[in-house]
């Protein structure tokens, strides 16, 4: 299945991209999406356990993904 990945701020800088469409196995979880990102060039700039949002909501590592989901890696926030 295809899901969209989004990267922001320092993570987008590290990986050199802000969004990519990727193919994951059916039944893949947030953990699997993170493993995919970790294999990309530049991913050594990410922390060990980045926060993730699915469809604009914070999600745990074991959250199962659905085709078309938007998976975002959320760097430490700095609003205010």
């Amino acid at each position: 299945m295809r899901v969209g990945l989004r990267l922001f701020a320092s993570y987008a800088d590290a990986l050199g991209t802000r969004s990519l469409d990727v193919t994951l196995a059916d039944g893949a979880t947030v953990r699997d999406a993170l493993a995919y990102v970790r294999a990309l060039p530049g991913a050594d700039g990410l922390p060990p356990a980045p926060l993730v949002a699915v469809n604009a909501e914070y999600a745990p590592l074991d959250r199962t993904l659905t085709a078309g989901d938007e998976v975002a890696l959320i760097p430490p926030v700095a609003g205010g």
Partner: protein
Amino acid sequence: MSHVALVTEPIDVAALLARVSSPTVGAVASFLGTVRNVNDNRAVTGIEYSAYEEMAEREMHAIVAEAAGKFDSVAPTIAIEHRLGELSLGDVSVAIAVSHPRRAPALDACRYVIEELKKRVPIWKREHYADGTRAWVDNRNTVAVQEVTR
């Protein structure tokens, strides 16, 4: 009616206060975050804010909903605007205005909104320094420093 927005133009603070004011409230508490000329002992010349916009708006609405029942049986009226893009020294980056019939819930809810916003709303900033360098800065260090100096 509560109000949440991400904006790229300067925030009109007087208009935000007017949004939550009415003859049914007795108290309006507000908080402004502004761009400071120094951070962590480095001379700052400006800040660039960006966001995961759909999620930032959703989280701000969630914070407003949480504050509704947290401090009083009557919900406060809350307006939040966060600016994105390039900001100069002294510019308002975030403005929060909260009204309530009584002052304690207005003050409590205002503080709740800024504390939660700083913890979880997906907004990022890159500081520009006087020496020409830039760096991504987040709220974790700031919080740590605050706790040490209290």
